[in-house]
């Protein structure tokens, strides 16, 4: 190789700012977006609470003011007060304790289902896009079939087959949640596949699988992550619906959706009973939606 000297005096103006300041400016954007901030606070709050409760159950420590299952720790149908922050139900159980203890259910189901859907759908969709041909057709038609399955009916069948419970409902939702992610991943992967850097990677001797993981995945992950974050709220809603139908926990174990169902008759006489669990569900959905919006604004204006 001939000796190379910097022979050009028209080297251009120094390159733009480096990585560190870019990360800071992205974070600054997030903070500036108040809605996203609110969403983040809510989400972080929920997740922390879920953690705390899960650990406390593991270590068999009670962190709530009252035991959530024990009856008659207070007067029956007492409205919210200092001693019972959210009031009591007809059996004298403290509502606040029940709400708190039920947190890990919704949080874990929504995060787990969404995560699995994201990964499974992402892999299926990008392989279909990249390989094309018959494999693409087969995978996508399989996706369509799963997509067509009604969530409720499937969940009920699984409830009958395996018995009710949080884990079983989680499984049921995982089975049917991934098709939109596969579609999204396929579309994104097709877009990326036409970029010149993919062809350059081929010219560098990289095999299809290597290109998929090195280049394609990294470039579709942003769009998919934004969609996934916005989707978590939906999982919470659907799971609460299943729980409302009694397919999830067995009483006396508390679960937000189940509580709405159990307390709906008290809407006039003790309105705090159905309204508070319902509001907590709504708060969770709102929190994740706001966070998803903020994430999208931050990532897509870069």
């Amino acid at each position, binding site marked *: *190789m*001939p000796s*190379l*000297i*910097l*022979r*050009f005096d*028209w*080297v*251009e103006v*120094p*390159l*733009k*700012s*480096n*990585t560190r300041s870019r990360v800071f400016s992205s974070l600054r954007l997030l903070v500036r977006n108040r809605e996203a901030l609110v969403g983040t606070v809510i989400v972080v709050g929920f997740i922390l609470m879920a953690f705390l409760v899960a650990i406390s159950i593991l270590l068999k420590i009670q962190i709530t003011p009252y035991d959530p299952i024990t009856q008659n720790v207070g007067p029956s149908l007492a409205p919210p007060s200092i001693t019972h922050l959210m009031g009591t139900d007809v059996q004298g159980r403290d509502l606040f304790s029940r709400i708190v203890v039920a947190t890990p259910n919704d949080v874990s189901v929504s995060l787990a289902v969404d995560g699995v859907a994201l990964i499974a759908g992402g892999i299926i969709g990008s392989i279909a896009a990249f390989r094309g041909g018959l494999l693409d*057709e087969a995978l996508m038609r399989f996706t369509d079939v799963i997509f067509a399955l009604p969530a409720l009916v499937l969940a009920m069948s699984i409830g009958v087959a395996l018995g009710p419970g949080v884990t079983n409902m989680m499984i049921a939702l995982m089975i049917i949640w991934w098709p939109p992610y596969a579609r999204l991943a396929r579309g994104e992967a097709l877009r990326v596949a036409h*970029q*010149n*850097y993919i*062809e*350059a*990677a*081929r*010219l*560098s*001797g*990289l095999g299809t699988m290597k290109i998929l993981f090195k*280049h394609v995945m*990294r*470039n579709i992950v942003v769009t998919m992550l934004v969609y996934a974050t916005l989707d978590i709220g939906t999982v919470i809603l659907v799971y609460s619906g299943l729980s409302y139908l009694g397919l999830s926990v067995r009483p006396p174990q508390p679960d937000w959706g189940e509580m709405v169902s159990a307390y709906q008759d008290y809407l006039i006489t003790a309105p705090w009973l159905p309204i508070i669990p319902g509001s907590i569900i709504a708060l969770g959905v709102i929190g994740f939606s706001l966070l998803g919006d903020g994430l999208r604004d931050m990532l897509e204006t*870069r």
Partner: protein
Amino acid sequence: MEPILQTTDLTKYFSVQRGLNPFSKAKKFVRAVDGVSMTIWKGTTIAVVGESGCGKTTLARTIALLTKPTSGDIVFDGRSIVNGKTNSKQVYRDLQMIFQDPESSLDPNIKVGDSIGEPLEGLMGWNKNEVRNAVEKSLAAVGLPQDSVDRLPGQLSGGQKQRVAIARAISPQPKLVILDEPTSALDASVQAQILRLLLQLQKDYALSYMLITHNIAVAEYLSDYMAVMYSGNLVEYGLTEEIMAKPRHPYTIALISSAPIANPWKRNLLQVEIRGEVPSAINPPSGCKFNPRCPYADGACSREIPKLQEVSPGHLVACHFVEKTA
């Protein structure tokens, strides 16, 4: 002079599906490259010129083995690279490509240094130190500062990105580089920088270039040989100087006279007489594809596809009535 690459009757057809049946055998084809035979001589630059739909980009991608040819042969550096036995990794050590759009040429999540080193890792199997040295040398060769190694493409301008793409292509020290419209997306002043860089690199590394372009001025500046394509066929081939001075194929005449000259006293544009549009690639006209638009078309033109014939040493034209343009 010896050839670095030769194609013989190279074709690339894309099948067009009729209807919704994914299993139906396609009866219609897009004849993107319809039998092209040409030679690239070692150490020279050949410009493949033509307008949209002529097949020059498909030709480039087929030669680069990014798509499989439908038929025909490609002989690169003495060996045929079309049969199934060829290891594409071996070929890519000596054959590289630079693309038109600098924005999509680099993975936005991968650092510049790693992008440049990608072919070295994939093709040469070097260790980290060897790769780093080679990347440093490539950066210096294209005139970018060494601290670019850690930058992301988003921090570079279009011209800088194209330089990175060039650095990546030359890092494995190839023999032939295919340039697919390397400056079409760049401003005039940046274009000039890149053209000079390409010339310099050709001298330093003894490269052969296959330049794909629709810009006649760039083709004239950079190339020694020219191949004119129309609707999948090669219609004229020869020394650039000869073809620019005296084009013989009626399409080449129209093409060159349509290229705007930067000289207000030579207003060629307003004298151009060409009618019609580029024909469909699925249903081309029978015989010579240019015949519906050709001012000299006659008898055999609509029946028989003309073969390339020598009108002077090294100057080939595919026209039944080439004597009419003498």
